[in-house]
């Protein structure tokens, strides 16, 4: 893997994730807010592949831990890793990794196939894995029971499914706008 290309992609994608935190949240008609940073986790996996996506998430979380207010709402510092929602944050690198793995394995020869694969990969990696880690966090930090944590996290699933669809649309546009982009993340010419 080319070192400087990886370095650039990882840093710039971490920057994109930080920008997603700066963009004001978008409210859906029913009042469900959408913060874009979990969409960034899905996009990282789909666009960068597993290793670079994992590195981008870790770089972003290191910056947050160092005290930079990069999470949506201007949050940052070590304190956020001790809050009830910390499991979701810690789940981001794992979610991006699994999304990247799946995207590498699924068909992506045409923009349409890449979009369908992106939806599946982000639903399993960015949604399922991140929520699973989030539930573990709620149980361990907020001392909820597994059932309570499970039903608590279910409330966010519809919004996150919508993000999977948005991720698929972005992947579709990128596949058309940058036809030489390798969604497995192995090559960047």
């Amino acid at each position: 893997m080319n070192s400087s290309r990886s370095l650039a992609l990882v840093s710039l994608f971490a920057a994109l994730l930080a920008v997603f935190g700066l963009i004001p949240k978008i409210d859906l008609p029913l009042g469900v807010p959408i913060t874009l940073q979990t969409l960034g986790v899905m996009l990282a996996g789909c666009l960068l592949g597993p290793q670079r996506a994992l590195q981008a998430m870790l770089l972003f979380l290191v910056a947050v831990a160092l005290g930079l207010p990069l999470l949506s709402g201007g949050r940052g510092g070590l304190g956020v890793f001790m809050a009830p929602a910390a499991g979701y944050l810690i789940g981001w690198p794992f979610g991006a990794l699994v999304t990247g793995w799946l995207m590498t394995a699924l068909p992506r020869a045409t923009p349409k196939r890449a979009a369908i694969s992106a939806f599946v990969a982000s639903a399993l990696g960015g949604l399922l894995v991140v929520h699973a880690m989030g539930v573990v966090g709620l149980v361990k930090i907020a001392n909820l029971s597994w059932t309570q944590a499970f039903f608590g996290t279910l409330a966010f699933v519809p919004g996150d499914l919508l993000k999977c669809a948005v991720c698929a649309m972005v992947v579709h546009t990128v596949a058309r706008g940058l036809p030489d982009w390798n969604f497995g993340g192995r090559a960047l010419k």
Partner: protein
Amino acid sequence: MGSLYSEHRSWLHGVPAAVKLLLFALLGTAQYATHSITVLAVGAVACILLFISLGRAVLPARKLVASVLLASLLILAFHTYMQQAALGWISVLRLLSASLLGIALTLTTRTGDLLDVLERLLSPLQRIGIKTERLALQLAMMLRFTEHFFVVWKRLDEAHRLRTGKAGGLSLLAPLTIQMLTSARRVADTLEMRMGE
């Protein structure tokens, strides 16, 4: 981009970053070893006193502290409703202590100093070929491009408003992502020229 570091000097600003990080990590871990409400309450009071002793240095963290208090109230209310008040207090005391220690560390330690500690901690990884010294460069690039991409987002939004009279919203994500990926290619070429790999 500014960090949450507070320019108002406090006594904790003078303690070396590595010492603070080690002490806070030990204290944060220790409170998970006990389930005694009395011990946890003493710990939480100590953390609150430490936090208050920082004086005006804590002002930049008002919102963060408010969010911690809100989360604590919600957890306590939920557990009380479920007739598990003792469990609720244990969670809240742990959350308060750990969060206040984390926020105190962030407020009183420069990002660069924490980064130095982190690079020292990661330095053994160099033996297996991982270039940990690039972490500082990656962080610098990330922060530089965060501002750049935010400006790009605002430009795209303005253009969208001029064309359609409405805010861009989610439809701007794809063009922003494409601009990021093409920027990454340019930056990678520049780095390749400078670093030779």
